[in-house]
């Protein structure tokens, strides 16, 4: 016998009211980060101590008629920050039991992610965007 109402079952959202959305997005962003993080680590290690001109050349260099490295950098940052928001949400859910504190820290995390993303994308546009 199930205590679940038919409506609740077809909604498929379970006791947390959000279904597998959070779980799935965290795994998909993680899978995307595997090749991007390897590309990123290799890039910054190769650019450590480089002159500004060398870094600019690397980020604006055209591959397949697009500034591929700048685009990969943008993808790395945006997906990493999304993954960060999802991950920190789990930590907050586990350790912060005061609902006001929980909401405050989640807003802070998202504000941080949006600020870092906005600044990075703006910088990438100045570096490799259409003149």
């Amino acid at each position, binding site marked *: 016998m199930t205590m679940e109402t038919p409506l609740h079952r077809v909604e498929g959202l379970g006791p947390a009211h959000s279904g597998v959305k959070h779980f799935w997005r965290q795994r998909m962003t993680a899978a995307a980060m*595997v090749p991007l993080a390897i590309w990123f680590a290799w890039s910054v290690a190769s650019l450590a101590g*480089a002159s500004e001109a060398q870094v600019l050349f690397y980020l604006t260099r055209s591959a397949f008629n697009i500034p591929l490295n700048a685009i990969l950098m943008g993808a790395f940052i945006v997906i*990493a920050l999304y993954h960060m928001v999802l991950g920190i949400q789990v930590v907050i859910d586990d350790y912060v039991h005061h609902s006001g504190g929980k909401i405050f820290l989640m807003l802070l995390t998202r504000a941080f992610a949006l600020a870092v993303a906005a600044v990075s994308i703006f910088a990438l546009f100045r570096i490799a965007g259409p003149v």
Partner: protein
Amino acid sequence: MAENPQKAARPRPLSPFVTIYRWPVTMATSFTHRVTGIGLAFGSAVLAWWLVSIASGPEAYNTFNMVAASWIGQIALFGFAWSLAYHLLNGIRHLAWDTGYGFNVKTADATGWLVIILSVLLAIGVFAYVYLGHGGAGV
């Protein structure tokens, strides 16, 4: 809340906590995954600063490089390098678990040690690569 009259007489027994347990490697790696994840969140701000300095011209970029090359900058960058290596390797371990592989206790212990050792070797390897003069040439 009503006071428990027995409270002063005899303290209630408590569950063992992290300070009591002998840490299994799986517990240490789980904990470290979170800590490195939070560390990398701060690293994202440094990455944004690096990109802004490149977009702002040679003076801003030189300032960034001076801070990055200082001993405190190098310690922070090594921390980020190791955190990224660790979070990446342990993340792959987590993805394997999510698809149903590696849950055997012995396997989970072994992959835990593997992640710890490989992440340290990777971070040292990346720094050795840069210090031996392979960095800075552009890719």
